[in-house]
């Protein structure tokens, strides 16, 4: 018997911890879900793995009994001995920031600049709201200390660091009882000597103290953003380190002998050591998995533009994937204090997958605004009390209530029938709280809730797609999450998108991302220089330093394979405020000419913004390297075989029709008869026309009458909207 090899994806969310186990040989998948254990999250991990182990064992025993007559029975210990990798994503870090449960942190800055963290960028994000709140800095003022040193913008030293002063400052913070120290000095991205000296002093004065210096967290220009990022890193570093080492021990104690990897916000995976060193890079580790799955599908099915859409209970997260690649942006915000408003959170400047998150989910509440119009979201009833139909005390109708009343959801088959939905209560709530006050009939109110949340999502999506230079009329929308497949059809129509893709197990489908994520690490350094005056030898040495650091980072994580490097440079017109990223194919920058850089910049700029200005001079601002290891490929399981849900071979699509029900059609403006399909019975190459509803345990796919559906050999649904003659490229 050949040795099997498994990988396990494990995503610790606020409510649930999700597990997906992959047999690398066959592509077979097992899924499990258990409640997160906030006291010690590794409890849930152990419990969930134990349950999976039993699930796999039962199945193996069944196979052994049935097919091999028990000859090998004694050798089958489940998957743990053959488990090669555990890939882990967690919301622990982001929650620690939002709930302010991080370490007591001190900050050391250049003399005169301890208030950078508090002053921020000074913009009022809500100009007419004089009571808008701002997030309090993670380090209070009394723990922000200064050293009398100074470096110029070109890296030369104005005033050297006085080591004795440095020691006194560090001792002062230690005496205050800090658990972690952040160091961020002005212009240190050009010359890190003083930050490094302070790091050495901290190691000497307080060897066990956690330290984060800005040059190592991310050496980029703009002092507020860099300070905020370094401070955030310092704030979560002790708890992340403790948590990850505990998780590692726990996994070892139950017999795991493979490697543990952590998902990065930028879409790669990295070693435990690196994640513990720069935890600020794993803040968005959870939601990133769906994007990585999207990237994989984009490549696997050769889709030039794909819009990955993941809609859950409180928010919708989405991302444009072009040529199988999601954009990575250099900054984002965490912990927005006011209704998802841009500018109301803490600035973090690390590479992160360009996810757009808005307050639109199944739990988004519908209300009558003061203006007497309908308002849906961003406030959410969450999971508890949740929508009115959950019967847990929710009073305000939510999007899920509308989806139920529109006939999209089956009140008796929600979560596979585990939860009964109260239709009458939902109807009463919409009638009393929306329809009556607005003076519209019930159907208009119910459809309005569904349609308005789609409009909100479409508006955000259009802006996001336009920013990336994409075209909403060409994208394939890929739906994930519990509510994603319910709303994807309406969203796609609003975008003018021709096609919709719904992967199997869309509720957990995002976890596939864990298996397709590259083992990669992104590095960046700022060094502003005019293109005309740039010393390409010097720039090459910056790239080589970054590559060396990338190699060390990956090797420290146990990598033995060949490491490849992808370089890029952020450039802009002289004086322009924003930079444009230019990928560089060359592995030696001295072989590149300024004209090469210029023409590539012009081409990219023109694609993004319509036109370029060849007469305006360019400057280079930041240099980036992605160090990565070869990707492990993933084979999708064919539905002709046995699938994760236990449907047998040779699915007979004729059995797939469960019945029909009345559901609302936006095109007809009325309820029409929809055919209801059981997704687990739909076989390969089966095709049918809308209006249809396709049900699986965690979600429901809605298809209108202008669309047609095809099931491919992997069980993916390809839904062509409005143009039935178009076939997909897969």
């Amino acid at each position: 018997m050949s040795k099997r090899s498994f990988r396990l994806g494990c995503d610790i969310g606020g409510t649930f911890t999700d597990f997906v186990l992959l047999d690398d040989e066959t592509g077979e998948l097992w899924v499990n879900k258990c409640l997160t254990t906030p006291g010690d999250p590794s409890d849930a991990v152990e419990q969930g793995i134990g349950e999976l182990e039993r699930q796999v064992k039962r199945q193996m025993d069944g196979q052994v009994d049935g097919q091999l007559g028990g000859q090998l029975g004694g050798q089958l210990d489940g998957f743990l001995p053959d488990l090669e990798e555990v890939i882990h994503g967690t919301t622990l870090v982001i929650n620690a920031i939002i709930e302010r449960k991080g370490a007591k942190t001190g900050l050391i800055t250049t003399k005169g600049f301890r208030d950078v963290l508090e002053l921020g960028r000074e913009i009022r994000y809500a100009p007419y709201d004089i009571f808008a709140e701002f997030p309090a800095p993670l380090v209070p003022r009394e723990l922000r200390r200064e050293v009398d040193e100074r470096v110029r913008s070109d890296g030369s030293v104005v005033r050297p660091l006085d080591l004795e002063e440095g020691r006194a400052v560090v001792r002062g913070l230690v005496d205050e009882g800090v658990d972690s120290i952040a160091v961020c000095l002005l212009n240190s991205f050009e010359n890190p000597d003083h930050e490094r000296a302070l790091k050495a002093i901290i190691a000497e004065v307080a060897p066990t103290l956690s330290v984060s210096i800005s040059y190592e967290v991310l050496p980029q220009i703009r002092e507020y953003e860099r300070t905020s990022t370094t401070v955030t890193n310092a704030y979560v570093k002790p708890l992340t380190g403790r948590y990850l080492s505990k998780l590692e021990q726990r996994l070892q104690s139950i017999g795991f002998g493979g490697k543990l990897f952590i998902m990065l916000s930028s879409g790669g995976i990295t070693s435990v050591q690196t994640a513990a060193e720069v935890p600020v890079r794993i803040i968005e580790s959870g939601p990133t998995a769906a994007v990585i799955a999207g990237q994989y599908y984009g490549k696997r099915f050769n889709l030039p533009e794909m819009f990955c859409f993941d809609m859950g209970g409180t928010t919708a997260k989405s991302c444009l994937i072009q040529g199988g690649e999601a954009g990575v942006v250099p900054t984002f915000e965490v912990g927005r204090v006011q209704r998802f408003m841009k500018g109301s959170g803490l600035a973090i400047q690390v590479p992160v997958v360009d996810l757009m998150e808005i307050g639109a989910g199944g739990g988004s509440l519908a209300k009558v605004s003061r203006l007497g119009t309908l308002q849906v979201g961003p406030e959410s009833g969450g999971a508890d009390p949740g929508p009115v139909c959950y019967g847990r005390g929710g009073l305000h109708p939510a999007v899920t209530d509308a989806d139920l009343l529109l006939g999209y959801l089956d009140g008796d088959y929600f979560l596979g029938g585990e939860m009964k939905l109260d239709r009458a209560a939902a109807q009463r709530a919409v009638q009393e709280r929306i329809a009556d006050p607005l003076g519209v009939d019930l159907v208009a109110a119910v459809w309005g809730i569904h349609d308005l949340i789609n409009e909100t999502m479409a508006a955000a999506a259009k802006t996001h797609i336009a920013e990336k230079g994409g075209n909403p009329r060409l994208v394939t929308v890929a739906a994930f999450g519990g509510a994603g497949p319910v709303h994807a059809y309406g969203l796609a129509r609003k975008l003018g998108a021709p096609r919709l893709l719904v992967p199997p197990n869309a509720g957990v489908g995002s976890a596939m991302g864990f298996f397709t994520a590259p083992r990669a690490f992104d590095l960046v350094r700022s060094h502003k220089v005019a293109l005309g005056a740039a010393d390409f030898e010097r720039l090459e040495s910056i790239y080589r330093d970054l590559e060396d650091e990338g190699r060390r980072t990956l090797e420290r994580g146990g990598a033995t394979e060949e490491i490849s490097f992808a370089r890029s440079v952020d450039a802009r017109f002289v004086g322009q405020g924003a930079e444009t990223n230019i990928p560089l194919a060359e592995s030696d920058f001295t072989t590149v000419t300024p004209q090469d850089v210029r023409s590539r910049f012009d081409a990219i700029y023109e694609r993004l913004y319509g036109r370029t200005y060849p007469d305006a001079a360019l400057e280079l601002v930041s240099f980036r390297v992605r160090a990565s290891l070869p990707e492990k490929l993933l084979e999708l399981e064919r539905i002709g075989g046995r699938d994760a849900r236990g449907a047998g071979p040779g699915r007979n699509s004729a059995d797939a029709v469960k019945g029909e029900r009345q559901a609302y059609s936006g095109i007809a403006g009325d309820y029409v008869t929809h055919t209801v399909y059981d997704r687990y019975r739909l076989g390969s190459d089966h095709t049918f026309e809308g209006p249809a509803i396709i049900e699986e345990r965690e979600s429901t796919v809605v298809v209108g009458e202008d669309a047609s559906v095809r099931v491919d050999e992997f069980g993916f649904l390809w839904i062509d909207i409005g143009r039935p003659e178009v076939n997909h490229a897969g």
Partner: protein
Amino acid sequence: MPGKKRTAFDPVTLEILWQRLLSIVNEADGAVARTAFSSLLRDAHDYTCMFTDRRGRELAQGSFATPGQSGAMALGVKGLVAKLEENAGPGEDGCVDGDVFITNDPWALAGHLNDVCVMSPIFHRGRLVAFTACVFHHSDIGGRVSSDNQDVYEDGLYIPFVKLFDGGVQNEAVMELIRWNVRTPEEVTGDIRSQIAANHVCSEQVCQLLQDYELEDLDGLADEIISRTERSMRDAISKVDDGVYRSEAIIEQPEGKGDIVIRAAVRVHGSDITVDLAGTSDQVDWGGNVVFNFTYAYVFMACKSIFDPDIPNNDGCAAPIHLEAPVGSVVNCRFPAAVAARMQIGHFMTEIVYRALADVLPHRVLASSGGTPATMNVFYGRDSSDGPWHSVLIRGGGMGAAGDRDGETSYIFPANGANTPVEILESDTPLIVETRELLPDTGGPGRFRGGPGRRVVFRVPDDEYAPQPNVKLGIQSGRYRYPPEGLFGGHSGARARFLVNGEPGNPYGLTRLQPGDVITMDAAGGGGYGDPQERDPDSVRRDVAQGYVTLEGARRDYGVVLEPDTLAVDEAATAALRAQPSD
């Protein structure tokens, strides 16, 4: 079908269309952030995108808009559209598809020449349906960069209301004229192109919306949105008792000139509110003059923030808010008054309205803020290798306290914008920033404390990095003599200060700096709210721990005695001190 007009929208469809209008303008806004050259636009967000219906009534506006532009622009664009209509023949629109207009007329728009407006009509199926416009604060507009200019001719290039594109064909002469009259031609022309791009995004999306919803025009939708918005504003205003509420402000002028007096009578009558500035000082012989639109913008800011801050801005918000300002006064100046420093007076309109209404709406207003007026610095010169450099910086000060909270730390208020990072400034210019920090005992004491003031120190290097002599610095700011006042017994915040090499300088002229010079600029602190003797001693203790208030300040201003070592509140000593009668 032609001629078919939808006049009524149900509340559900209305909201969907409204959201779409807002997303269109935010998309245009985003295009600016990505394509603009000047850091004043990209980093400081000093621009506003909007669009109107066919008659020039504002429908939607970018959500990050700065109030001085957004409030003035709604009026301004309406005026420009009216001008087109006046000049049009019977049955004509006064413009054709592909036209793009440009102007920086301070009286037509946002009150100074640097604010350049680019406006484009939007045609759908051959019919005029809307106008889209954006105002950018350009980094330079030529002229003498100083607040002591004597007339608008000194302020810089004046672009009348002309066509930049005529039926789709660019008028090269206009661009060329601008290029040769500004110090930073690449930046200014690049930013004008960014304005054209923003309007283009807006136009395309408006047409798409009309097509998607099979609408002939925006008229019916505009009526509905504007009337609902107006109703909401009126509901809020009508809750205030009818009456006349008065306030008065004294604003300092440059050295040697008398003070300016602004007198406000705020009349609330039913659901209308009229701010009457009769009795206000005459226009002045320097750049502090404010055009009507800009005065209106900050009166509007005050009313909007008090009555209905959340509702998206459109023509309906402004309908119940009226301004009466004597022609020829400093708040409604006549051409050709110098206007470059109009924010030094104009920004005060908001706190004047707050102060008038404080007694009837004590929990909807703030004490005066150190960021009123905003501080703007324009540094320019030539570096050691004769290369020109130029940088515009804007900053705020401590916010005024409110009835339930301390003033925020440091913001531009009532205007809005972002600072330029020190690392960006230092890489763009030869200047070194020595300090950017909050100052203790500068927030106005009160039951709720004003936000602290903030110091910035610039040094002109005198080593091998020294620029050529005569680095020029133009400043707009204020509060050197009269500090931001408190409310309801709250004390004033600290005054602003301007020091050149440690000696008081003249913040109103053009300052010429030499290598080695050090400039210190302290922004004022915000005013306090309520009696400082009533401030919770533990809040005072926290302020001392954080360094916002000194030990002496705690005792002097708040009557709170702290143990110097532990900072514990000495309850007995505090009670005794607070029991003493104050003078």
